[in-house]
């Protein structure tokens, strides 16, 4: 793989995992808000 | 009741060891498990004699570290809130309780090392130079491992996750012990000074002992 290929791969992994982490927090936040709504 | 600190610790250690001698988990299970581990490894990496001779010492210390910490998790050492409260009511200093527990664990880890040592030497044809220094290295590693695993055991508490969690938390923090033990023996083999590694071991034991004593009272109060 060319050097640029590795660079793209690296950035894809970084931003991909960041997006996944953000999505997981967003999902857990939504779950928590819904649960709190049920408990009111 | 105010027995001096070391008397309290000694009594607790003695009670621990007596209790352990009844159930015999360490001698009957943990030590043989360590021996099985030593036996098992060449099944995976091959039985080539020069290879085993080269890595034998390292494998021994890795097994001591990984399996030795299970000694701290022995059932006879399991302490529920009831026992803790009882000792508290009796006026036992929590720091002395920690010291006693670490002492008994240390003795058992030492037994672990002493029994498995000859087994490792035999299985891996390990050649040791500077036998005399082992008198320092082996007990200091036992002390460090006992102190660290007892301390982490207290921090984790009695939750059901303890048997898996304690080894996971201990392992990375025990790296200096593993390095000091293996590098000392390696240094002896090469005829180099190992004083620095011994001092590191001693320093670590001291730091862990202090940490254990300082955290004993805060941990006493936690549910």
């Amino acid at each position: 793989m060319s050097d640029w290929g590795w660079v793209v791969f690296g950035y894809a992994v970084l931003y991909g995992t960041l997006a996944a982490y953000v999505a997981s927090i967003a999902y857990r936040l939504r779950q928590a808000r819904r649960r709190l709504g049920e408990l009111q | 009741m105010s027995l001096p600190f070391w008397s309290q610790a000694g009594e607790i250690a003695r009670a621990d060891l007596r209790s352990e001698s009844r159930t015999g988990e360490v001698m009957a299970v943990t030590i043989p498990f360590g021996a099985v581990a030593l036996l098992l490894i060449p099944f995976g990496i091959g039985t080539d004699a020069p290879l085993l001779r080269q890595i034998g010492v390292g494998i021994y210390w890795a097994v001591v570290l990984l399996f030795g910490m299970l000694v701290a998790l022995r059932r006879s050492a399991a302490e529920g809130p009831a026992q803790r409260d009882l000792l508290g009511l009796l006026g036992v200093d929590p720091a002395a309780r920690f010291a006693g527990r670490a002492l008994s664990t240390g003795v058992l880890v030492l037994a672990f090392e002493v029994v498995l040592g000859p087994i490792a030497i035999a299985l891996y044809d390990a050649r040791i130079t500077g036998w005399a220094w082992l008198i320092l290295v082996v007990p200091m590693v036992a002390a460090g491992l006992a102190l660290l695993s007892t301390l982490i055991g207290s921090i984790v508490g009695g939750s059901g996750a303890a048997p898996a969690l304690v080894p996971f938390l201990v392992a990375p923090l025990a790296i200096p012990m593993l390095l000091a033990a293996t590098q000392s023996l390696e240094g002896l083999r090469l005829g180099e000074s190992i004083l620095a590694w011994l001092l590191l071991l001693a320093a670590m034991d001291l730091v862990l002992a202090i940490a254990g004593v300082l955290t004993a009272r805060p941990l006493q109060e936690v549910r």
Partner: protein
Amino acid sequence: MTRRRIIEIAAIAGLGGALITALVVPPERTQGDLARLLFVHVPSIWIAYLAFSVTLVTSALYLWKREMRWDRLAAASAEVGVFFTGATILIGMIWGKPTWGVWWTWDARLVLTAVLFFVYLGYLALRRSIIDPVARAHRSALFGVLAIIQIPIVHFSVVWWRTLHQQASILRPGPLQMDPPFRSAFLASVVAFTFVYVALVMRRMQLGRLEDEIEVRLASSHQEVAGAAVAPPRIEGAVDSV
């Protein structure tokens, strides 16, 4: 526009800016285009160290003040720290494969980053194992303080060990030239990642507050009045007088 919203926008803008500068900068003299990976690899480990420090300081603060918000911050920072440490290791490996030909070397820095990752993970695993919030805060704070005492010893022993077994200098990367274009790409990443860290920690703390609130509601709603199971004895045909 809340403070949190501003930081989140800054984080996204920062990431965009950092990405553009990293891609637009000319190739580095010795490492060529691969150096672009270092623009994210090094800031990532710095943020991981920052996150770790925050966890340790707030752990100590919790033990001193016993306020739950310090514990919540310690946990949030630890979780974000695990992310950045993991990202550092992954990017480091992706940079290392074309540079050295191997995914991993036993160089002190890499080994210590891996150890840090597992200690963080252990902290989070410890928190998961404790249900009671106060006990959880207490025990994980004590573990945090133990870690700060023990980790320098680990660091020292590993560095020493690797110095004794010095690797061939071919495997060590040469120093990065820090001409203005590189310096700005680097700085852009550091700034962006800092905003990302703060944004993530704020959201994670919000999640923590909500989860604690749920705990409280659950606990109070399940509590029966003591003695509710005890009913007065009834004689057949009797009529309730009250």
